[in-house]
């Protein structure tokens, strides 16, 4: 009996691939999905699907699928997201597979209408991952999903990789499904999404190929803030940078300041940052936050003679950097007050650190932001100039200063 049962268990283990198997040649691997709401209230789902044979064969393709574009764009309408996706099966020769989806793009009209169904669909599906990126399109999601953008053969891979380096400008940060859904379900801090814009192509072209004047590049710029599942407002570049600084998600952001005359600039890169947020409640029962930001920056490029080794010069640069960062954060805080929204998640600090006081705000939290009081302290330290010890200057500049 032991042998028989052992053999049966072994067979069970060896046959695990026989059930629910899907041949890779029968799969349509979705790389990006766009969701738009049409005027007739139907939902348009646009999929960017990989053509692995073409993608692996490089330009022109040497794979089994012949030449052509490395991705296939498919779209279908439906009364719900799921119905629209299922309607793609009416003409797709392959079964849609979500496991490799890199990004979900929500169209502006859909975001204004509400994202409840999208959140629900993408958190129920076992194929989808919470690490999939999610973003808002400035216009229609289908335009973003179908745009030929970036240096990778698959446009979705280009957008995915662009997000990897988006912290260099800090005008938007990477948001995955997990973070978005967390914000959507949590009353304390709203869901935010980076915004994707279509700009005229910034890549001039390749040596062997003429640039397409019609082609557009997907650019990450600004953030969108949601409230109760609907788009509540957009943050511009400065406000987004302020939000990211308070969140500690600004990364190695570049800050450009004037130096010498107004034309020349000095560029600083933040190499380290620490945020400290201390919540309190005023005697008038208003939320009050002490926000402290400490940054370390390195000089990346200087367009004028600037001997930043001198204490006074160093202090001047640090002062200008502090003023620039303060302006960014204040812009974000003022936006939050004006829009009664909390994209910086200040309420989370109040809830976690002053839970007794939080009780009085819990029901009306985003609205309380209009009463927001804050004390912002930014401290900047210049810690070096990359590989150069001395400023780049000619002998004449050194003799005569500026």
């Amino acid at each position, binding site marked *: 009996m*032991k042998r028989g049962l052992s053999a049966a268990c072994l067979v069970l283990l060896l046959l695990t691939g026989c059930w629910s198997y899907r041949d890779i040649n029968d799969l349509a691997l979705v790389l990006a999905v766009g969701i738009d709401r049409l005027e007739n209230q139907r939902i348009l789902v646009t999929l960017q699907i990989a053509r692995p044979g073409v993608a692996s064969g490089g330009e022109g393709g040497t794979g089994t699928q012949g030449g052509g574009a490395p991705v296939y764009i498919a779209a279908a309408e439906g009364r719900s997201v799921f119905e629209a996706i299922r309607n793609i099966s009416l003409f797709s020769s392959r079964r849609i597979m979500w496991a490799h989806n890199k990004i979900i793009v929500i169209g502006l009209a859909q975001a204004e209408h509400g994202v409840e169904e999208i959140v629900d669909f993408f958190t129920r599906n*076992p194929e989808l991952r919470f690490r999939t990126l999610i973003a808002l399109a400035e216009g229609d999601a289908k335009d973003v999903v179908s745009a030929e953008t970036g240096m990778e053969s698959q446009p979705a891979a280009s957008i995915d990789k662009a997000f990897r380096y988006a912290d260099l400008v800090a005008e938007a940060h990477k948001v995955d499904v*997990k973070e978005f859904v967390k914000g959507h*379900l949590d009353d304390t801090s709203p869901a935010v999404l980076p915004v994707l814009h279509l700009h005229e192509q910034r890549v001039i072209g390749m040596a062997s190929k003429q640039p397409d004047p019609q082609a557009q590049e997907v650019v990450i710029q600004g953030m969108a803030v949601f409230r109760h599942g609907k788009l509540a407002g957009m943050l511009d570049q400065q406000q987004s940078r302020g939000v990211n600084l308070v969140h500690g998600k600004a990364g190695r952001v570049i800050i450009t300041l004037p130096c010498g005359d107004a034309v020349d600039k000095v560029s600083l890169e933040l190499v380290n940052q620490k945020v400290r947020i201390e919540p309190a409640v005023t005697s008038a029962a208003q939320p009050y936050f002490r926000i402290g930001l400490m940054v370390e920056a390195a000089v990346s490029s200087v367009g004028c003679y600037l001997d930043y080794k001198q204490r006074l010069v160093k202090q001047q640069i640090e002062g200008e950097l502090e003023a620039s960062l303060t302006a960014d954060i204040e812009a974000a805080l003022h936006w939050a007050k004006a829009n009664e929204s909390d994209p910086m998640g200040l309420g989370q600090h109040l809830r*976690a650190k002053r839970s007794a006081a939080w009780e009085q705000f819990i029901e009306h939290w985003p609205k309380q932001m209009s009463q927001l009081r804050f004390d912002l302290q930014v401290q900047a330290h210049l810690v070096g100039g990359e590989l150069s010890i001395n400023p780049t200057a000619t002998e004449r500049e050194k003799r005569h200063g500026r």
Partner: protein
Amino acid sequence: MAAKPRTQVDILSWYGLIIAATFPKTIGVSQGIIARQTGRGIWLATILAILLSAILLALVTACMTRLRTNLGTALQRLGGPWLARPMLLVEALFFGLTFLAGNYVFIGHLQYYFLPETPLLFFVAAYGSLALLASIYGFETIARFGIIAAFGSFCITAIMIPGVVWDLDALELFPVAELGWDRFALASGTVLADLVVPIGMAVSIIPMINKQTGLIRHSLLAAALSGLLIIVWPLAEIMLLGPALTAKQAVSCMTLARSAALGVYVHRYELIMVAFFLPAVFLMGALPLFSAAKALSRGLGLKEAKGLFLPILLALSAFSYWTHSDRLRANWFFGDIWPPLILVTAAVLLVAALAAAALRRP
């Protein structure tokens, strides 16, 4: 002096059994359930349950080392078969419930997340077959497998941590009783239900351990090790997913595992994690099936337990199939019915062990 039992297990296996029997259900399925009950306080509710379960395990270990035999035999000596048999039936029920929990964890992980189109019957049959095979091989084999299962539990935890640690947000941890202390206590009780499994094990296994010296210390240390492995998970779940998303998930540890990524290039390694996880899940099937058959055979006055393996397995598998054929029903059973049932049976066993130890004839 009590005669030495024929079956002997070493102390390392006892450690392995305690860790493997408590780890699988506590880290995921139960965390989702208690997140629905208490919100972001799941980590503290789990810590309290771990501490309480360690004390209870030490208590029952002390009783069993004093009795020097299993609970059934001790009660038989104390009050005859009419005292021993009902208690053995309770013990069988306890292990039956543990088997069902193991099956739930198995189905919840493999069917829900990896093979949603595979028929439920396959999972029930596969789980039952492996439990049956292990039971036929005997308790010593199961106990040794416990060491592998505990090692797997350690490995899955060790590879999960670096995959999520950079995304954790400590602000999610507080306040701990946002939905009220009554719901917090309920949540702690729900986790305790998973952690009392070693109590049932202790009443039948402790006399089989080959070295009886320092067993209380060993039981406490095993409970502490198990607790350390377990507590990492609710902390990570709440700091990564937040309370609402943890509560929304069928199996929150799978969502955590699927969210783990080592840098940019190493991600989607949940299948490796599940491979490390499954030995403990199988142990939650094998050990209870064997122990339930043993307890039931003695409760019914039968000489051999082997003949009961298949009938018990069929009964439990049929119940499991019925429960899981509707996921809402499974969620209701394991969220609302299973915890009080196992807690009551564990309490009965604990009280019986205490009474037997107190009334032991010299």
